[in-house]
């Protein structure tokens, strides 16, 4: 059998090829708990700042210091853990046992599972969070003394929950973190709670995520009933040795991955649950960059990677993951091409890139997915932060038609060029980080056999071209071309103070600029892990990240799993490897994706830099011809997905809600509650005239009553039990 046969039928039998490496219990790494404790501390301190109405930047300083501490701790943890992984017990939480059998115990403790996957995640999460809080310290300045502490408290909650999600050693604590990040996301999207759009977006994000959360809750439950544990190390062991088969009743193993998938698609904004992410851009931009681009939305990728062996038990689930990812990538890219709001474009781009990551997971390139998460975190963060700087400086202006030539405006060069660095990486320009990470996924689509994976691969290549186009559409429109701008509608007091009220964009200062530069450098340096290999195993040539993923649960249970993580060509490819254009797909992809990236970039340059009028002409031509006029309209209207959801889900629910409301109002309240209460009231109203208040009339009633009693007694005495009368 070839290494790249990856024979899925074999997977279906669940045959483990590589024995599970033992995970070590390492209580001496207790200080890893600081990664969770420091954000918690920061939350408490920010809460105190809010309580004492601190007017300075103290909350930002506290949060930055705490998150930097968490980042340094995670780096130390990376240097001190023992591969393949450590479990660090912190606190006992749930530790039940009612027998000695496999299904007679349930433990879910606050323990940390330190392996390469969680370390990879926690390092970029805390690192980027530190930088973005520095950025936010300047960005949130207009709210100093108002929502400033609330904002940083929200960020602290988010990092606390995210670290719980990433570091937990069991699915229950992961679930806690999962809900926690959802809550933090709700908190921060709705930060401007006086704006109805922000409130609606926050609710939408929360409610859509609840659907996914239901999937996760059910999955955790089924995993326990099927495998008898929710702790990763035990779970992986049970899957490896197949002992669950003694009680396995057939259907749960096939259902679990789909439930996990639902959760992942909700959190990571994939079809059909992606609709919340574009609206989430109502939050402050640092939040969009941190939570809705770099970190939280990758939680779904993390979940699938973490529970990958469960997906391997049901190969169809991976095919679904791949197809949903690929379709989402394409759909979101087409929407992104036609939007005018630069933050929205970035949001759709995030959805599209997350689609690529799921495609990578689906085509057995966990390495590619993890690497793309890593590079994407940097370049998407820098793009968002640049958009945020523009929005901040131009009074909320986000329309790419209304700002132009940013790179020529004094004070904006750093923003323009760091944005350029992010844009070329996102566009997959050759030799950028995005180019290598995307190629790893695209090539694997042609290597792995699956239903229509080749079509999927070509679809993803087209999507990559679109990505280059929409990314540079933004950059050429906003940063290049002649200098022109109009302010948005969120004028600050200091925007128009000189030159008789003429608008002057206020350029970002030190904090924003330095963070932009650092993250831009990071998005360049993110290519280094691709070429860096520290593993002795020659089979693994995907670089440092591949090593990292190789050691984690993401590939345990994968037969011949070294083959899966091989990022590019090596001697293993000789054995019946599928080819693409007569070449090894991994080589071919360098040429193909490089080319489509250049084509997309060229198109963007033509339509949005050299001949901007042609873009309008093209749009006019498309709209003028009946057979294609629907296309630009549908793309601009986001394929009417929101409208379809309103018609299919919101409207029926709205109607149902009103029916329930009417039932409650008229049947429950009207008949049962109020109806019962009306009985004594009616009786009282009937007897009310007796209470005239006049002593005499009371006395008459009394006398009449006594008379009646006497009469009855007389009758009783006369006839006995009224027998004669009645």
């Amino acid at each position, binding site marked *: 059998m070839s290494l790249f046969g990856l024979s899925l039928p074999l997977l279906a039998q669940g045959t483990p090829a590589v024995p599970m490496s033992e995970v070590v219990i390492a209580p001496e790494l207790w200080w890893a708990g600081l990664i969770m404790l420091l954000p918690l501390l920061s939350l408490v301190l920010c809460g105190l700042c809010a309580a004492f109405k601190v007017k300075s930047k103290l909350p930002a300083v506290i949060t930055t210091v705490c998150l930097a501490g968490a980042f340094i701790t995670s780096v130390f943890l990376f240097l001190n853990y023992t591969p393949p992984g450590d479990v660090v017990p912190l606190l006992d939480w749930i530790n039940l046992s009612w027998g000695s059998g496999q299904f007679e115990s349930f433990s879910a403790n606050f323990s940390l599972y330190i392996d390469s996957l969680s370390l990879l995640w926690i390092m970029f999460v805390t690192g980027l969070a530190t930088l973005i809080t520095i950025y936010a310290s300047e960005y949130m300045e207009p709210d100093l003394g108002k929502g400033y502490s609330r904002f940083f408290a929200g960020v602290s909650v988010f990092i606390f929950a995210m670290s719980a999600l990433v570091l937990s050693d069991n699915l229950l604590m992961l679930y806690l973190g999962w809900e926690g990040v959802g809550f933090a996301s709700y908190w921060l999207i709705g930060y401007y709670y006086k704006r109805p759009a922000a409130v609606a977006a926050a609710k939408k994000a929360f409610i859509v995520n609840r659907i996914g959360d239901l999937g996760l809750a059910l999955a955790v439950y089924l995993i326990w009933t099927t495998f008898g544990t929710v702790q990763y190390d035990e779970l992986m062991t049970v899957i490896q040795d197949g002992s669950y088969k003694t009680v396995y009743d057939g259907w749960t193993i096939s259902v679990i991955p789909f439930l996990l998938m639902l959760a992942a698609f909700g959190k990571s904004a994939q079809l059909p649950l992606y609709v919340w992410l574009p609206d989430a851009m109502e939050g402050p931009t640092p939040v969009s960059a941190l939570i809705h681009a770099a970190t939280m939305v990758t939680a779904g990728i993390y979940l699938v990677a973490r529970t990958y062996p469960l997906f391997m038990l049901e190969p169809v689930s991976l095919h679904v993951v791949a197809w949903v990812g690929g379709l989402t990538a394409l759909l979101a890219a087409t929407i992104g091409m036609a939007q005018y709001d630069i933050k929205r474009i970035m949001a759709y781009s995030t959805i599209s890139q997350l689609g690529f990551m799921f495609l990578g997971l689906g085509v057995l390139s966990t390495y590619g997915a993890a690497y793309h998460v890593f590079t994407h975190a940097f370049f998407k963060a820098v793009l968002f932060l640049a958009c945020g700087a523009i929005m901040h400086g131009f009074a909320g202006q986000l329309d790419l038609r209304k700002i132009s030539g940013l790179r020529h405006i004094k004070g904006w060069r750093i923003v323009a060029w760091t944005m350029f660095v992010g844009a070329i990486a996102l566009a997959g320009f050759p030799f950028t980080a995005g180019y290598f990470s995307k190629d790893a996924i695209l090539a694997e689509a042609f290597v792995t056999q699956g239903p229509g994976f080749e079509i999927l691969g070509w679809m993803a290549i087209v999507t990559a071209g679109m990505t280059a186009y929409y990314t540079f559409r933004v950059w050429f429109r906003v940063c290049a071309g002649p200098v022109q701008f109009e302010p948005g509608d969120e004028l600050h007091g200091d925007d128009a103070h000189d030159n008789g009220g003429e608008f002057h964009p206020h350029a970002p200062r030190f904090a924003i600029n330095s963070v932009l530069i650092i993250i831009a450098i990071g998005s360049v340096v993110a290519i280094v892990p691709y070429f860096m290999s520290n593993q002795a195993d020659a089979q693994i040539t995907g670089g440092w990240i591949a090593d990292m993923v190789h050691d984690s649960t993401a590939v345990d249970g994968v037969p011949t799993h070294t083959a899966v993580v091989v990022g590019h060509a090596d001697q293993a490819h000789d054995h019946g490897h599928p080819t693409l254009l007569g070449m090894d797909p991994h080589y071919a992809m360098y040429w193909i994706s490089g080319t489509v990236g250049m084509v997309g970039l060229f198109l963007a340059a033509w339509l949005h830099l050299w001949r901007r009028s042609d873009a309008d002409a093209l749009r006019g031509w498309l709209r003028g011809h009946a057979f294609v006029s629907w296309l630009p309209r549908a793309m601009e209207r986001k394929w009417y997905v929101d409208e379809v959801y309103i018609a299919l889900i919101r409207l029926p629910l709205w109607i149902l809600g009103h029916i329930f409301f009417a039932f409650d109002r008229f049947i429950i309240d009207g008949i049962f509650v109020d109806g019962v209460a009306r009985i004594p009231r009616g009786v009282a109203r009937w007897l009310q005239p007796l*209470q005239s*208040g*006049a002593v*005499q009339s009371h*006395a008459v009633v009394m006398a009449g009553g006594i008379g009646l009693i006497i009469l009855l007694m007389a009758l009783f005495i006369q006839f006995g039990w009224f027998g004669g009368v009645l």
Partner: protein
Amino acid sequence: MSMLASDTFAAVSLAHALLLSGALMAIGMAGFLSRRNLIVMFLCTELMFQAAIVAMVAFGRWYWDFSGQIFVIFILTVAAAEAALALALVVLLFRRRSTLDAEAWTELRE
């Protein structure tokens, strides 16, 4: 002496006493229902009281049981105390509204 008393009482039958009691009761009730002066109404209640006392004495005699008369002693004592209280109340009510008309006190309706 005892014979005389006995004879005297023998002439007065239970029916007489009960008729007296009933008459007192009727007069008291008629007065209570028809008059609005608080003092008169109070006196009417006293009349009805006396009706009860008369009935009790009569029944005590009829059954040759003295507990009826013992009761009467108690009732008279209580009635004396009650009369003092009721008159005090009437005085207070008069001070509030400076009228003795019972119509002035109809707040407890409805």
